[in-house]
């Protein structure tokens, strides 16, 4: 079996971020919001107290990165989870009432999918509210169409399988069949899509924060840090490096896991033949 | 050499596990050879070894493999592929998936012909039409325009046969060609093979688990059990005088009108062993009604060249 490089690399990258997240609860060197003007604009120096340096307000960048990981993961994982659950519900409902389902629900999903993610998120955030919970809601709405379409088509595929007929023959109720048979059949694809979607969700969250629509200052968020670093870029370019790398590692990591899982899925399929 | 296929002492392994052992067979030109055995007996693998289609990961050795005149052991890979493409028509198991479901028949039936015989599309379609008529379609032009899902199982199988005939092959390998078909359609398909064999003088390697099927349509046959040919010869000879207990049981199982409804059907209890196939003794010993102690250590090989009847058994 070929070693799945994507998956391994992805897991490594995501583990780094998760480690940072875990450490943020116990080992943050400084309060991320604590300003210390005399210490502002310190360059990164591994031997000093501020390993990654300080920003324009003297705030420790490492601490801000660590704190930022909490928001990113909360929004990333939270929004995709919410989107998945709603998507499963809508997909299941759509498959039960074929004409209504295909006609109305799926067409609405198609419409939503026509919008680029960031645009949709921006629109929704202005309606909902700015900040972390607004981001979660907005991004989860963006995620719903993908999952509902996926679930809808998987249910239609599974419906005709013989073992579903067998399950009906010994009297299983529709609900029992759904949880016992449909869900396990759908899990592999759902999990794969889930991982890939977290990458997108993080991308959108950082974009929203960058534009000032996500997490609000003075709280630390990688997108916000990138945005704030713009005015000083020519003089202190290091301010953009830490948040930039953090974003890249996170998004790339989740995308690679998604790709790796997808490869395994495809190989498993052809093995069954 | 008037034989289409000469196979001597084939041995196929998957890592350390022996799948096929000491298998030899000859298919004379213009002959239908039936290779009979249960699932797991190795008949498909044997056929694939003859036409260079073994899946990756399996290793094989043989004293001789000559297919349609070419020595398959010494030929180069590209040479082999070209030779097989031009001279062998292959109809695999699970033919439901053989035809691409999203492509019309006319756009796929000529693929092998165009590629291997270097012909144009127009010629391919003309030949396809003629062959579809030959395999029994009254309106070949209509069939060409169909998608595979518009055809019934039996019709699809006939398309597969037509496709296999496109290159005027010397040998057709048909792997379980009638499984999943109704018994009435099975008969039609088998009679088609018979016709092709008689009129076009094509040799056919017919693989099946159904001895009854093979009996009526093959000139010679080989019975495989757990990776070995345990009995082979002219069909009539083997049927009139089966020597191996397994063959005898298989013959008993063939359904006939004389079945007594109140008696249980003849069974072969147990199942084919997957591992441990390279022991010296007889592999059928666990299920053989006539097993003796000596069968555990040694199996006598009888070869009667005059009658062309060979079998592996300690019984006379």
């Amino acid at each position, binding site marked *: 079996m070929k070693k799945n490089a994507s998956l391994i690399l992805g897991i490594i990258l995501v583990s780094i971020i998760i480690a940072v997240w875990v450490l943020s609860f116990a080992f943050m060197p400084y309060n991320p919001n604590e300003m210390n003007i005399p210490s502002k604009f310190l360059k990164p120096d591994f031997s000093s107290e501020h390993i990654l340096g300080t920003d324009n307000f003297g705030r420790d960048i490492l601490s801000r990165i660590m704190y930022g990981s909490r928001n990113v993961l909360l929004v990333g994982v939270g929004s995709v989870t919410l989107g998945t659950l709603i998507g499963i519900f809508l997909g299941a409902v759509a498959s039960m009432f074929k004409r209504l389902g295909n006609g109305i629900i799926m067409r609405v999903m198609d419409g939503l999918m026509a919008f680029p993610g960031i645009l949709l998120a921006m629109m929704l955030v202005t309606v909902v509210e700015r900040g972390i919970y607004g981001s979660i809601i907005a991004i989860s709405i963006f995620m719903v169409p993908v999952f509902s379409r996926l679930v809808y088509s998987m249910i239609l595929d599974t419906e005709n399988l013989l*073992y579903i007929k*067998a399950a009906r023959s010994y009297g299983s109720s529709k609900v029992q069949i759904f949880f016992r048979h449909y869900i396990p059949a759908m899990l592999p694809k759902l999990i794969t899509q889930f991982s890939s979607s977290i990458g997108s969700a993080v991308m959108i969250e950082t974009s929203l924060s960058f534009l000032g629509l996500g997490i609000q200052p003075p709280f630390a968020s990688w997108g916000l840090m990138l945005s704030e670093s713009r005015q000083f870029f020519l003089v202190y370019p290091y301010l953009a490096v830490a948040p930039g790398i953090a974003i890249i590692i996170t998004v790339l990591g989740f995308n690679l896991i998604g790709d790796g899982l997808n490869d395994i899925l495809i190989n498993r399929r052809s093995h069954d033949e | 050499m008037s034989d289409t296929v000469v196979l001597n002492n084939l041995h196929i392994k998957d890592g350390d596990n022996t799948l096929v052992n000491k298998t030899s067979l000859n298919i004379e030109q213009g002959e239908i050879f039936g290779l009979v055995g249960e699932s797991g007996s190795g008949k498909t693998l044997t056929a694939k070894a003859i036409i260079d289609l073994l899946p990756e990961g399996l290793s094989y050795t043989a004293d001789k493999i000559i297919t349609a005149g070419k020595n398959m052991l010494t030929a180069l890979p590209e040479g082999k592929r070209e030779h097989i493409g031009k001279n062998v028509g292959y109809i695999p198991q699970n033919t439901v998936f053989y035809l691409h479901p999203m492509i019309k028949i006319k756009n796929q039936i000529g693929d092998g012909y165009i590629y291997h015989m270097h012909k144009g599309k127009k010629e391919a379609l003309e030949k396809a039409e003629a062959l579809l008529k030959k395999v029994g379609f009254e309106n070949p032009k209509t069939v060409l325009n169909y998608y595979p899902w518009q055809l019934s199982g039996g019709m699809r199988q006939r398309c597969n046969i037509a496709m296999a005939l496109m290159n005027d092959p010397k040998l057709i390998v048909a792997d379980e060609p009638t499984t999943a078909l109704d*018994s*009435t359609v099975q008969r039609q398909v088998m009679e088609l093979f018979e016709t092709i064999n008689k009129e076009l003088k094509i040799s056919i390697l017919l693989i099946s688990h159904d001895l009854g*099927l093979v009996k009526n349509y093959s000139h010679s046959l080989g019975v495989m059990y757990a990776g070995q040919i345990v009995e082979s010869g002219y069909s009539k000879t083997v049927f009139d005088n089966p020597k191996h207990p397994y063959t005898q049981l298989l013959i008993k199982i063939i359904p*006939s009108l004389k079945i007594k409804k109140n008696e249980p059907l003849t069974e072969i209890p147990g199942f084919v062993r997957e591992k441990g196939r390279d022991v010296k003794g007889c592999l059928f010993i666990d299920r053989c009604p006539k097993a003796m102690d000596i069968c555990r250590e040694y199996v006598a090989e009888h070869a009667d060249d005059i009658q062309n009847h060979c079998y592996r058994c300690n019984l006379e």
Partner: protein
Amino acid sequence: MANNVVISAVNIRKEYVTKKHFITGRTKEKYVAVKGASFEIEEGKTVGIVGESGSGKSTIGEIVGGLQEPTHGNVFYYGRNIKELSEEEYRDYRKSVQFIFQDPKGSMDPNYKIDHILSMPLLTTNIAGNKNEAEKIIDEMLIRVGLDLSIKNKYPSEISGGQCQRAAIARALMVKPKLIVCDEPVSALDVSIQAQILNLLRELQRELSISYIFISHDIGVVNYMSDTILVMSNGAIVERGEAKEVLLNPKEKYTKKLIESAFM
């Protein structure tokens, strides 16, 4: 004294709508799968239904077992119209009619092991309250159908077709049915295994007094298993009678063709 009649089918007709009017939903074209079939099944007896693919035999089996509803006609369970049964009585009827399908591995969810698959009917119908009770019944049944208990820990993909069909039979027997609809149960198996399965089904019938509807395209197999035979073609029953009679004195050309193909 005749046996009790378990199932009685009266004038069953099944139509499928193939073309609907775009807006009004009115039926424009329909396909008739079954054209008015009537028959009875007594306790402990087997009714064989034989015909080519597309003859409607599987559809009738599913209608009689409650997996599909007839477009017209009625099914009676021990004399009572199934449309008029109370919820509890209807559940009892569905429990009493079980199925075995042509593709044994396909009829089992590949994501579960055999013991879990066999426990599902027990837990669904509340015959067993928990996994332990279920396990006892499962063990008993596996031995009954001739399987080694080690099969409980395997997935359907890891066992042979014959073993899988035995497990499917065990599953059908779990809920102590009165009637099992066998839809081409041996067509996908090697001939040497077919005999094993057919012998098993016959044994079980004698022991447990189960009725069968035995559906197949192979009249030889149907003959061996059945007391009476219905010959179907294009949705209609074209010939019927005692199995021996139909085989020795076929009246319809179609029946003769079926007989010829089975006993080549």
